[in-house]
C-alpha cells in the first residue's frame, strides 16, 4: 500500500487491501517480531466523538508496536470546547505525534485533516461517512473464514447512516462480491455510496427482508438501527424489530454462514446467537489489533521510508 493516509475505503485497491491483510496475518502469527518496530514513535488519538472499542483498539495496537499514545481526552475538556477549528487542532497535534487517528462527527473531517498535516491520518469514523480501518478488520475476518473471492454477503440494518457499511461495500467491489442490502426503505444506502457501487459495476440487490436470501449468504453483516434516526419512537420499535436475528432465524441458514457486527450491538443480534457456530463478532473485534498494527506499520513505513528510527522531535 502506497498511501499517506487512510481516509476512505474507496481509495484502496485490491492489492492495497491484501497487502495490509497479509501483514495482519504475519502480525497475528508472530506478534513479538513487531513489538519494538515503532519504538519512540507517538500515535495521537483524536476522538471528537465518543468511542470505546476503536479508541482502545488503536491504543493497544500502537503499544504493541512499541509506540506511545497521546489522547486529547473528551472534547468537552479540550480546546475544541473553546471553539478551535479542526484545522488548527490537527496542525498543533501534528507536532506532538508521528500519526493521527481521527474520529469526528462531520463527514469529510478526515479528508480535511489529511490536507492540513504531513503525518499519516487514519479516519476512525467521520459522521455518516466512512470507517475504513473497521473495513480492513471486517475483511480480515471474512478472509479467514471464506476467503474474499466469490463471496455473497448480506448487509442488514442502518445502511443510510452506517459508516462501516459504506466503507465495507466500497471495498468489496474490489473483490466482485455479490452484495445484498437488507433494510427498511427509509434506511437504504445513500446516493453517494450507490453511485460508487454503480461506477464499479458492482452487483448489488436491495431487499426488505432477510429471509428470502438467507440461504445464499456466506456472510451476514448486521448493523444497529439507531433510535435517533426515527422521528417517532413507535416507528423505531416497529422497524427495528423486523431487523433483529436470533438462533431461530438462523436455523435454516447455511452451516458455514458467518455472522458479523461492528459492535456495539443492542438487540439486533440476540444473545442466543453467540452460542452458535455462526457468531464471529467478538473475533471480529479482536481482529482490530493485528489489522490496526499492520495498518499503522504500513503507514509509518510509507511516511518514514529511510529507516525505522523514531522521527526527530521539534520538526
Amino acid at each position: 500500500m502506497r498511501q499517506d493516509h487512510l481516509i476512505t475505503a474507496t481509495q484502496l485497491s485490491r492489492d492495497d487491501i491484501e497487502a495490509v491483510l497479509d501483514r495482519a496475518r504475519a502480525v497475528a502469527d508472530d506478534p513479538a517480531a513487531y513489538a519494538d518496530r515503532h519504538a519512540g514513535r507517538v500515535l495521537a488519538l483524536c476522538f471528537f466523538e465518543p468511542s470505546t472499542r476503536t479508541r482502545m483498539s488503536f491504543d493497544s495496537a500502537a503499544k504493541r508496536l512499541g509506540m506511545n499514545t497521546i489522547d486529547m481526552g473528551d472534547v468537552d475538556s479540550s480546546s475544541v470546547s473553546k471553539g478551535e477549528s479542526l484545522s488548527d487542532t490537527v496542525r498543533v497535534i501534528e507536532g506532538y505525534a508521528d500519526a493521527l487517528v481521527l474520529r469526528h462527527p462531520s463527514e469529510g473531517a478526515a479528508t480535511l485533516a489529511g490536507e492540513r498535516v504531513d503525518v499519516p491520518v487514519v479516519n476512525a469514523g467521520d459522521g455518516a461517512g466512512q470507517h475504513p480501518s473497521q473495513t480492513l478488520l471486517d475483511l480480515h475476518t471474512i478472509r479467514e473464514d471464506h476467503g474474499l473471492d466469490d463471496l455473497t454477503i448480506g448487509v442488514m440494518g442502518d445502511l443510510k447512516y452506517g459508516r462501516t457499511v459504506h466503507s465495507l461495500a466500497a471495498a468489496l467491489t474490489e473483490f466482485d462480491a455479490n452484495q445484498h442490502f437488507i433494510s427498511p426503505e427509509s434506511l437504504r444506502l445513500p446516493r453517494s455510496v450507490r453511485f460508487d457501487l454503480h461506477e464499479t459495476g458492482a452487483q448489488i440487490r436491495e431487499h426488505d427482508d432477510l429471509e428470502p436470501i438467507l440461504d445464499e449468504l456466506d456472510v451476514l453483516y448486521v448493523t444497529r438501527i439507531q433510535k435517533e434516526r426515527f422521528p417517532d419512537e413507535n416507528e423505531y420499535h416497529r422497524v427495528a424489530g423486523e431487523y433483529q436475528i436470533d438462533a431461530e432465524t438462523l436455523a435454516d441458514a447455511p452451516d458455514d454462514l458467518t455472522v458479523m457486527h461492528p459492535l456495539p450491538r443492542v438487540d439486533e443480534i440476540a444473545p442466543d446467537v453467540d452460542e452458535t457456530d455462526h457468531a464471529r463478532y467478538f473475533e471480529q473485534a479482536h481482529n482490530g489489533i493485528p489489522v490496526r498494527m499492520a495498518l499503522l506499520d504500513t503507514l509509518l513505513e510509507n511516511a518514514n521510508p529511510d529507516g525505522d528510527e523514531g522521527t526527530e522531535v521539534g520538526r
Partner: protein
Amino acid sequence: MSDHELRVSKIRDGTVIDHVEGGQALNVLAILGIDGSEGLGVSVGMNVPSDRLGRKDIVKVEDRELSQSEVDVLSLIAPEATINIVRDFEVVEKNRVTRPDGVTGVLSCPNRNCITNAGEPVETRFDVVADGVRCDYCATILRSDIADHIDV
C-alpha cells in the same frame, strides 16, 4: 423563427448567454447573482424556438463580463450554452462552455453535516461527475439543484 429574428435588442457592452436549456434562464441569473437590484440591464428570453435545442433560453446582461468560475458553474446547468462577450455592439469573443473537472469555492455543500459547513477555514471543492457534482469532502452528490447551492 431563427435566432436573429429574436425581438430582443442588441446590447452595447456585456455578455449574451445563448443556447441555455429551456427553463434555466433564471438559474443562470441566480448563478451570476443577478436579481435586478444591482441596476444592470438584463433581458431574458425563455422557451424561444431554436434549431439546435428545440426550445432555448437566452440571457443578455449589460455591462458585465463573466469570470471563469461563473462560466464553470454555468456549464453545469447549461452545458450547451454559448457565451458571447459584446463590446461596442460587436461580439468580440464567442465561446462554448466546457465542463470543468471540478469547481472550487463556488458551491456550498448541501449536506449540513459536511465539514465544509462546520466553520472551518476551507474552500468547498466539487468534482464534476456524470450528471452533477460531488463534494470532495463528504462525497454528497448534487444534481438538479446545483443553482440552489451557488455561493459566489
